[in-house]
């Protein structure tokens, strides 16, 4: 299982904040996982196509080509605006 999390405007676009799914068999990295999620429907395809999204794995910011492993917590979110 992997834990997926979506925040802020992305969460609103997708209509979901978090979910648990089985790691798809042919997915080994972030680009693969993102493509797999985009395959769900047009909303997902469009929302995750946003080049400004950041990604964290296990609560650390990662590069776009990071490896994904079973048990990971993976989060997508727009640029942060705190403080």
């Amino acid at each position, binding site marked *: 299982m992997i834990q997926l999390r979506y925040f802020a405007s992305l*969460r609103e676009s997708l209509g979901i904040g978090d979910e648990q799914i089985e790691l798809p068999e042919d997915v080994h990295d972030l680009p693969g996982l993102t493509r797999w999620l985009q395959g769900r429907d047009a909303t997902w395809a469009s929302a995750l196509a946003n080049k400004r999204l950041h990604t964290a794995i296990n609560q650390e910011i990662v590069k776009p080509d990071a490896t994904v492993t079973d048990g990971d917590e993976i989060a997508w979110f727009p640029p942060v605006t705190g403080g």
Partner: protein
Amino acid sequence: MIRVQTEDFDPGAEIEQLRHRNKGQAGAVVSFIGLVRDLNAGDTVTQMTLEHYPGMTEKALSGIELEANDRWELTASIIIHRVGPLVPDDNIVFVAVASQHRQQAFRACEFMIDTLKTNAPFWKQETLPDSTRWVEPAET
């Protein structure tokens, strides 16, 4: 020390605690308070909601504090960030440091708030009179 909380904080009480953590050693205390403004990008803001990523937020703030303490000689430091619904003039964030030297205190305090603004997982949603919108990162 870091805290993420919905309730308000008291800058005076926080400064008081910070300066007594290393009594007699610190010559300088610099603090920053970020407040909700009633106007942003020309529009009246009636409310603001702070969303964050629980767990990652605490890691990010601790990392920022640790890096500041590595880079400058601080005798004490604190970051407090509120989450949830806020209204104009409310406190959002508090960063304070104590140091023997004022330049170090200014540099460290500004570094912490600057880094928080670009690296910590918080997102602001503004309520305008007729709509809501997510705040875009400032160019500063």
